[in-house]
């Protein structure tokens, strides 16, 4: 029955899209935006949710009358977790579909793959996921957390309130964990932590046999100093990792684990009773006690027609990016890329944790850092909230990037200005 209805719906949609293509007259009344998230392949698990969020935001905006008096239309493409395909699909969205802006990408690899396309064709990408920093592009807005908006405050919290002196930096073997751990290691050592008190461990993607590593962590933790694990383990590998922790009896009171890639979505596939007290650091949790958040959750559950669906941090980042774009377009009075790029800097929009987020000249945003402890119901209890922090694209703790800043306002208009040499063009793009 429902399947039949879905099928009929899909058929109808196909018919409608073909008619829309043939009828060019409709194009003037709508503004198109691109949604570039994997709907199949390994990353579909995370990215499909963001596609749904974008569709919901577009629908809501259209109910409010659209933008500049025109209706918004989301153009959804599926890059299928294939990095080169991201670049191809981005090109298609910009050149063929003529979208005004694109919301998308999840992994850093996919972002790096589309970056040259956006710069070449001069379009705008809103990137909604926490990432490793060390990048700033004229055409990309990073609404997820930079390392100083997530990793460093989390480490500070553990050191201060739990008295942690020994650190395990465990991550999946790719660019985000590697860079984050490099920054964290430099940061910890600058705080006087000895190198022998830091253990760095990498595992392959989708690692499922955590027995050895968990027992190594136990071993590392029996040196008489309070130990914690800082986990940059990628989404999917977390479930077996936490299961092994629970089964081997590592309690949060003994060795807490703070994770940067585990949110409400990831915990939805997990029995969280043995994990109570392990931590995560984000800029948003579903459990945030704010009216705007309660409305958002209600809307989301209504939109997905599923009472069990959870909200998470990248969804908030997508929400902020979308609101900022709408506000900037309305201020500029046009969707022209250059004008929007000028008008969006300094735009402040409400975020879901009850405050506001401002788009900064370095194309990152301000937002508070929240530390939460996992609860038995799969939600987080917020144990610390900082005031809003400005995203720092070039880490101050890495020798390569500590002299670099980024400011896309005129006249500087530079993503990698070297304050030591006074020249634009240090490292990266």
């Amino acid at each position: 029955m429902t399947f039949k209805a879905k099928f009929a719906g899909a058929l109808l949609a196909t018919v409608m899209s073909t008619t829309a293509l043939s009828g060019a007259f409709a194009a003037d009344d709508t503004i198109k935006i691109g949604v570039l998230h994997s709907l199949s392949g390994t990353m579909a698990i995370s990215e499909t949710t963001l596609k749904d969020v974008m569709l919901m935001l577009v629908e809501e905006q259209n109910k409010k009358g659209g933008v500049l008096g025109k209706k918004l239309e989301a153009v959804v493409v599926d890059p299928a977790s294939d990095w080169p395909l991201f670049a191809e699909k981005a090109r298609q969205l910009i050149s063929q579909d003529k979208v005004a802006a694109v919301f998308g990408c999840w992994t850093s690899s996919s972002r790096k793959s589309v970056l040259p396309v956006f710069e070449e064709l001069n379009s705008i990408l809103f990137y909604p996921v926490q990432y490793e920093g060390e990048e700033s592009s004229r055409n990309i807005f990073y609404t997820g957390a930079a390392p100083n908006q997530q990793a460093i405050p989390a480490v500070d919290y553990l050191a201060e309130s739990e008295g942690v002196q020994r650190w395990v930096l465990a991550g999946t073997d790719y660019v985000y964990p590697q860079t984050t751990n490099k920054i964290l290691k430099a940061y910890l050592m600058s705080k006087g932590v000895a190198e022998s008190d830091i253990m760095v461990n990498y595992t392959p993607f989708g690692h499922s046999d955590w027995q050895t590593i968990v027992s190594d962590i136990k071993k590392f933790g029996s040196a008489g100093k309070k130990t914690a694990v800082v986990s940059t383990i990628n989404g999917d590998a977390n479930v077996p990792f936490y299961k092994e922790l629970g089964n081997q009896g590592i309690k949060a009171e003994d060795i807490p684990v703070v994770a940067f890639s585990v949110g409400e979505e990831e915990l939805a596939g997990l029995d969280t009773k043995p994990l109570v007290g392990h931590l995560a650091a984000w800029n948003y949790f579903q459990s945030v006690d704010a009216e705007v958040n309660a409305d958002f959750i209600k809307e989301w559950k209504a939109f997905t027609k599923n009472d069990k669906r959870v909200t998470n941090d990248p969804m908030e980042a997508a929400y902020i990016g979308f609101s900022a774009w709408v506000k900037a377009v309305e201020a500029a009075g046009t969707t022209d890329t250059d004008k929007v790029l000028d008008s969006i800097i300094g735009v402040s929009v409400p975020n879901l944790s009850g405050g506001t987020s401002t788009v900064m000249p370095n194309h990152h945003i301000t937002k508070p850092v929240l530390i939460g402890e996992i609860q038995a119901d799969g939600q987080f209890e917020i144990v610390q909230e900082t005031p809003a922090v400005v995203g720092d694209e070039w880490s101050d703790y890495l020798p390569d990037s500590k002299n670099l800043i980024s400011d896309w306002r005129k006249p500087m208009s530079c993503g990698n200005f070297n304050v030591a040499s006074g020249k634009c063009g240090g490292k990266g793009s």
Partner: protein
Amino acid sequence: MTLKSLLQAFLACLILSFAAPSFAQSDPRPLIDALAKADFNEAEKLLGQIAASGDARVVPALNAFAEGDLYFRKSDNLVFIAKTAGSGFELIDPLTGTSAGQAAKNAVTKIKVNNNLRRVIRSAMGGLTLLSPDRAVRLQAADAVLRSPSPENLDLVEAALAKETDKEVKARMEEARAVSVLSSDRSIDEKRAAIETIKNLGGRNSLGILNSVSGSIDAGLKGDLDAAIAAIESEQQLWDMAQNVWYGLSLGSVLLLAAIGLAITFGVMGIINMAHGEMVMLGAYSTFVVQDVIRDNAPNLFDWSLAIALPVAFLVTGAVGLVIERGVIRFLYGRPLETLLATWGVSLILQQTIRSIFGPTNQEVGNPSWMSGSFPVGGMTITWNRMWIILFSMSIFVALLVLLKKSAFGLNMRAVTQNRRMASSMGIRTPWVDAFTFALGSGIAGIAGVALSQIDNVSPNLGQSYIIDSFMVVVFGGVGNLWGTLVGALSLGVLNKFLEPSVGAVLGKILVLVLIILFIQKRPRGLFALKGRAVEA
């Protein structure tokens, strides 16, 4: 401001209780009620005072606090233990345990707890429950003190020790006393005895305790301490070896589970079946559906969910396998390249179908109680789920071996694979034997999925992560030989686990692949190559 006045009230209370010893215990209620408005630091101080009261009546309240069940009523800031009842809460008095009526969800606020407070509570509970009449509670209390030693608990432990009669509890309390002595300011002789006790106790926890005091211990004891640490470490090293072998066997059994279905479809039938991983995935999803139905209809059967899921998964994946063989593969016998492409396509179709039906996110498959947790064997920890999986994969292996060697169907199967034309002229309906052999291999992959759902993600991508490993095991072990698959899986598992601690998981995996490539160069037919006529067939 109000907090200050509250604090003054407690101070007054405390002073009163000291001044008037005839009131053996002060009323801990104001301390508990003060938790309502305390931040984490203040709560820690309050907990210290509650624990110092030595009043065992606070135990349920502390327990509830650690579990996050402690709430305060917004109207009067009184603290209660709250249990969910319908759409609201039932409030229970924290000290007397009597009901204090119902409250709506928004009329009460949860008192926040963090790891640090949980630690403090655990230690305090240990001290408070040492004298409990229940033997199990006393044992637990001694364990709690053992895990979070503090000099404050020393008097309590000694008092309890004097009264204790149970041998096992007494031994545990001796150990708890020893760790508390180490961090106290007792005499050197007492500490020396304590070090000896902890050394005999052994294990990682003891090592941690000894290491933690090594900076602050009296100079005269440094030698004893270092000797004790060295003794535990050398003992631990042996156990680490044993633990590594166990981990290797456990990884090997997972590989065996994943590969054993493929040993039939690829090994025996010679079909390059890229959809094998998806059969495992379908088995895991069958488990999810079975558990979902059980949760909704008969929650008390939950511990049996895996046993119920086994035949369901076997039938579902077996049927899917049958359809694939009849619909696709039978047209492609003798054309391995096309088979590879076709089954790969089938695997994509299956993945996306599951994604459309269940969504792309992970599904929660619960562990029955008998598969959770672990038990110690000497200095190593064995987790129940891994142990059951080893036993399970071995029994599947034996069952399959018996089926192949002893049953009529097994005889037909072997006859067809060894000499198809001869078998056909003996009256065996070879197409149906092919179909059911493929269905059997798929069904076994489904059963493996039931077990793997207990240790891995249940997502549409589940199968992909096993397909490479499965082929690796079958090729390494020798195509067409079940024993080869067993030995191949276990030796790859152990090899992997011995490489992992020294070179890391990433490099370890690469090294294993390189070794296999070299091995296949040398012996292209794997560990146990089939000999004789079967090779040419």
